[in-house]
């Protein structure tokens, strides 16, 4: 049950700049449309918030189909439901003949991805990430 108000901008399709969705438990999704749209996740991607990611990706593909970069550098926590949402989002993007890159995952999130056999989803972008 969400404790905060939900702001869903799917009913304002002209808002191509930023889509911010508040959900209980703390996931913020910032989306910047482009040739490679950037989806920035902030906070916690878990069983309470995983569907928000799926919905954001679906809305993005409907609004601005193209390659997607998912930036996890401000994502504090990701559980198995979060991994499943990342994997299904990737599958959805690829089903639209585009690519999805996932960058910026901290070590603990990379460990969860690897344990879920989803390690290859993540691109290691910087030396710190492979530490």
């Amino acid at each position, binding site marked *: 049950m969400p404790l905060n108000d939900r702001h869903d901008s799917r009913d304002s399709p002209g808002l191509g700049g930023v889509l911010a969705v508040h959900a209980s438990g703390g996931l913020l999704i910032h989306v910047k449309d482009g040739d490679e749209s950037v989806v920035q996740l902030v906070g916690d991607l878990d*069983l309470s918030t995983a569907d928000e990611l799926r919905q954001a990706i679906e809305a993005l593909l409907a609004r601005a189909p193209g390659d997607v970069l998912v930036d996890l550098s401000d994502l504090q926590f990701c559980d*198995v439901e979060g991994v499943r949402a990342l994997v299904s989002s990737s599958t959805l993007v690829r089903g639209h003949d585009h690519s999805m890159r996932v960058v910026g995952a901290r070590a603990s999130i990379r460990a969860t991805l690897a*344990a879920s056999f989803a390690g290859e989803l993540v691109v290691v972008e910087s030396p710190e990430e492979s530490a």
Partner: protein
Amino acid sequence: MTPASSPHPDFRHALLVHDTDDQLLEGVGAFVTEGLESGGDVVVLSTEDRLGPMRDRCGTHPRLEYGSVEQFYRSPTRTLFTFQRLLAERTEPRVLWATGIVPLGRDAAAQAAWDRYESAVNEALAGFPFRGLCAYDTRTRPASVIETARATHPTESIDQTCHPVPEYVDPAAFLAQPRAGVPTPPTSAPSAAATLVHIDHLPQTRELLRASALSASALPPLTIEKFLVAVHEVAGNGLVHGAPPVRLTLWGDLGSLTCLVEDCGPGGLDPAAGLRVPRDLSTLGLWVARQQVDDVFIGTSDSGGCRVLLSAT
């Protein structure tokens, strides 16, 4: 939770008990020959001091590899899931044959951890075309260790023939035995405690546990974060598949973290659940949780619900 389904038809987990180096070389040599002749890929894990004689006995072959026991068998849980990952990622349709020497524990607790590893192989690796042969040297292993090895290996190689082991017990049954060393929760004062009734309580609970773990233990932050992921998955299961309230209790000391998670559901979770690569989503969280920590022990609480003890060092 239903018990394990039947193993892959090509799964074997055999014991080789030997009194001399010659017996070891004979047993491993026969294993390697059978593996190669049947078209399998073979890995021989040997101690550094025996690598030479092993190579002399088994030779070279494109499908034969040698490795170091000291490098491979570092920690029971990590070794188990490394093997599992190796098997799951294989694209070759060939059977993987592997022989090695499980370390002797430096104390009773460490030995029990390796014994549990051997037992867990029968669940975690059973879904794969895998033939394992574990060598136990009677000169360096106490009789109790050999005896326990008979409880954790379904077959034994005697004079190069495999025989069923009458003393073998399945992983869930092994964990119920005292020699499996399943711990009881600490009785000392906890570092933190929390009661959750909804999944929305998980983030604040993680904050609490993180702060407590960071102040109570000297474990690296990554170890703590991985521990929190495991606790989160187990607590989430307790809320979703068990029933609220779910009680978490954390004990942290300098070198370890222990967390007890108890739910008020119907219980009945198999103690060996979450060891197999999941086919469906029902054990995904538990399987991932097991890979993030050293141990996950599943039992029943006084109220009949699930009781899970997680530990990391």
